[in-house]
């Protein structure tokens, strides 16, 4: 018993150290990375348009809202923006993963897989910019009711269009105005 508690305390210490003493990631402020992801999302739309057979089934997907009202967006604080972006990325990740299960066309499968890995990379970028606080608010599964920040699409082409719009809009606006990058420029 004493040995077991000792081990637990040691593990706790390690976890604490792992949590706090990890060196912060260098902020990734170059928007060319995001531009690269945007181009690959557009490539998926092109492949989707040219797909003939095995291109997925009609299915509902919950995806984030992509519209940006500049006047409203400018008045929103960074945290709120970050939450919206993080939530949206999580929704897209789930939707794309579900869609990929129904796709048998190999170029389309490959493109979707690429998009999913890009979304994971964006999460790392947000982490580097200290904008990852909203991760805990991600909805665990797609069966959850749609929130005010989500919408429903009924096909894969629409899903891919939402992905493109989301990356080009909210994600880009957040990254371009990230405080960590502003501090770097000034």
């Amino acid at each position, binding site marked *: 018993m004493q040995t077991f508690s000792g081990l637990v305390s040691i593990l706790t210490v390690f976890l604490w150290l792992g949590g706090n003493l990890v060196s912060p990631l260098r902020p990734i402020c170059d928007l060319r990375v995001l531009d690269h992801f945007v181009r690959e999302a557009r490539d998926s739309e092109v492949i989707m348009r040219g797909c003939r057979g095995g291109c997925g089934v009609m299915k509902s997907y919950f995806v984030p809202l992509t519209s940006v009202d500049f006047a409203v967006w400018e008045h929103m604080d960074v945290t709120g923006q970050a939450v919206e972006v993080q939530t949206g990325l999580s929704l897209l990740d789930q939707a794309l993963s579900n869609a990929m299960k129904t796709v048998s066309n190999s170029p389309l499968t490959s493109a979707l897989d690429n998009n999913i890995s890009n979304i994971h990379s964006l999460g790392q970028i947000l982490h580097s910019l200290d904008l990852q606080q909203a991760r805990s608010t991600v909805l665990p599964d797609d069966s959850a009711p749609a929130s005010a920040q989500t919408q429903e699409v009924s096909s894969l082409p629409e899903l891919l*269009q939402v992905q493109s719009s989301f990356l080009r809009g909210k994600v880009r606006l957040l990254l371009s105005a990230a405080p960590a990058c502003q501090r770097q420029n000034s």
Partner: protein
Amino acid sequence: MTKMRSNRLKIIFMLCLACVTTGGQHFESKVAQLLQDETEHIKCFVEGKDLTCFWEEEEERNHLHNQYTFTYSYENKNKMACAVSSLSLLASNKTIFFCKLAKTPFFTTLHVQVHRDGQKLYTRSLNAENFLFLDPPRNLTVLSSGKEGQLNVSWLPPQLKYMDDSMIYEVRYAAEGSDLGKVEVIKVSTMLVLLGLESDTRYKVWVRVKPDGVAYKGYWSAWTEPVFGVTPPSDVDPLIVLLVLSIGLILCLLSLTVILSHQKFLLKKLWPDIPTPEHKFPGLFTVYKGDFKEWMSHNNGSMWGRSVHVYTEELPSPLEVLSEVSLTSHDTSHREEVKPAEEDEEKESERSDSGLTDRWPDPPHAHWLMDQLRALQENPESHSQSSLLQSHDTYVTLNQGDIEQQADDVFEETLPLQTLFSSAGTPSLSISHSDLGSLQQSSGSGRLSSQSSLEYPNHTWPPKGPGYAYMAVADSGVSMDYSPMSSSRIAELGRHRIYTNDYKNEIFPHKWPLSGQYIKSG
């Protein structure tokens, strides 16, 4: 106080008017451009942060703007209406109706519709971020960079937030007065250095802008007003000038040195002296003042050989022997006259064993001569003192040049020609006279002329080895055997190829013994 307020209001009004006018000008130009380029009925563009959609009035219809309704929707929301306005374009004399969305949603699909009197007229679905129509860049400046053929171009991007890093520019430049222009595309950066321009030339520069197409898309903006810049004149690097001058100077000095060191040689080559024969005639011009006769009389003997030597630069090869032999009998003197016609002798191989004129037109007495020669072969001794010898004529032999005695022969041949003996009827004479033919030095034509210019200087022919041969020979190697003297060598003559005029003179110092004569053929 009231006056000041009214003045301020006026100023603000003027500024607003200016802004509207400027914006209106841009707006109208954009509308005009899209009227030409866009094919959709509802033509939309984003100016600033607002989306403007417009459509054209149908021809010969005078609708009012309130007859039209414009609605839009996005993200499954309810339709929203937009106020319709009209605008008359002065340039094209057209009327358009337009709607400007106050709060334009970006990054989502907009569904717009136009109704007229409750009826749907046009519809369109578009994403606003794809229809940016930017204003031209501002504050275009063109400055000389100081370097040859370069101009620095810089400008400011249109005032638009969030899009500064998503713009692409196009710079057009052309020399003033020229229609041909070049275009440079540059991303994000708002300055450019034009290279490869002509020196001291005035250039016109224009710039326009467009979204780069990644996050935002749109149309090319209008060109800015042209701005002029002058390239600096070409300047020569002073270091290069100095180096060129130094090298030129060094080359000049070198050439001068060469010329001076080879002055004489060059002078001789460029301005050769006119050759004078003074050195060949010593004393002619200095002592005798050019009187050749007098000079000759004083220098006759000694100079003759030299002069002959001058002219005979090569071994005199030909010998022309003219002999006049009358060979009728032993007692009678014969005058043998061989006057070969002028014929060409071809090759020495053609000279047969007879060595006689096979190709020549036979002289009248040729056959007789042949007979005599044959007779001599048979009985050389009996003919030792043939009538030929007793002929009144003389003939002269020349040594063609035996290899062994070539030097001597040369010297011998430089000696003036002289008869070996002069009078006919001197049986002791072993050498037959003949008319001395002129020296033939033709190298190829075996011409034997029958001239008889005799030169009989009083000069003893130095005795040489035994025997002699005499014949008229041309350079071509044809030999004509005129020897009336028979010897055992005549037989050889018939056998060997005769192509040379080789002889050994058997003349004794004082007399001309007749015996022991033979022809030695080379």
